[in-house]
């Protein structure tokens, strides 16, 4: 399941939703706002998301993960709005029978979420400037 949240993400209560008596492994990923990006000092950040399309695209990503690694439980929450250094911008949690599938599915989901969902971030720099950040794959494409 995927959701866009306007309020702080609480990984501990979210991971409880993935408890399963048959699950032996849990892998969680969190993206935190760090104080630097591409050589510039970051003060804070603004996330914009278009939820109707983001939710549909996330459902496709989860279906892809489920077809590769059956029997896993997965969940992802992404923030929108204003975030400060240290805030959690995105959380992905996966529980599965064994650790190999938990790690792989968690990694797959965050990698796809980052490049496919209509979510944008604007960085506010310490020097007063600001700018929209291009995603990694787009930056490579030129």
């Amino acid at each position, binding site marked *: 399941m995927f959701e866009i949240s306007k309020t702080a993400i609480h990984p501990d209560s979210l991971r409880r939703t993935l408890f399963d008596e048959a699950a032996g492994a849990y892998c969680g990923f969190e993206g935190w706002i760090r104080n630097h990006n591409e050589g510039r000092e970051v003060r804070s950040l603004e996330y914009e998301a278009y939820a109707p399309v983001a939710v*549909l695209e996330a459902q496709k990503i989860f279906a892809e993960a489920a077809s590769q690694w059956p029997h896993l439980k997965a969940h992802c929450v992404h923030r929108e709005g204003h975030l400060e250094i240290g805030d959690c911008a*995105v959380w992905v949690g996966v529980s599965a029978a064994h650790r190999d599938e938990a790690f792989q599915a968690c990694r797959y989901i965050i990698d796809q979420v*980052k*490049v496919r969902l*209509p979510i944008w971030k*604007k960085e506010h720099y310490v020097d007063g400037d600001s700018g929209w950040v291009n995603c990694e794959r787009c930056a490579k494409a030129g």
Partner: protein
Amino acid sequence: MKQITVRYFALFRETAGIDQETRNLDAVTAADVFAATADRHGSSEPRGHCKVAINDVMADWDTAVEDGDTVLLFPPVAGG
């Protein structure tokens, strides 16, 4: 001509100065809509950088647009 509602997001919205507008466009594909609204979003080349959705469903740049469609123009995404 087709009546198309165009929605601008993030950088495109800031550049356009508006969230959305409805225009009569001589457009066959989503790429045509992107090109015809360059005066608003300010970008010349969508492929490999930008994404598009039609009526809230992700589409390709060569997907056909119909009269009455809402076309969503997404600048390069940066989730996470």
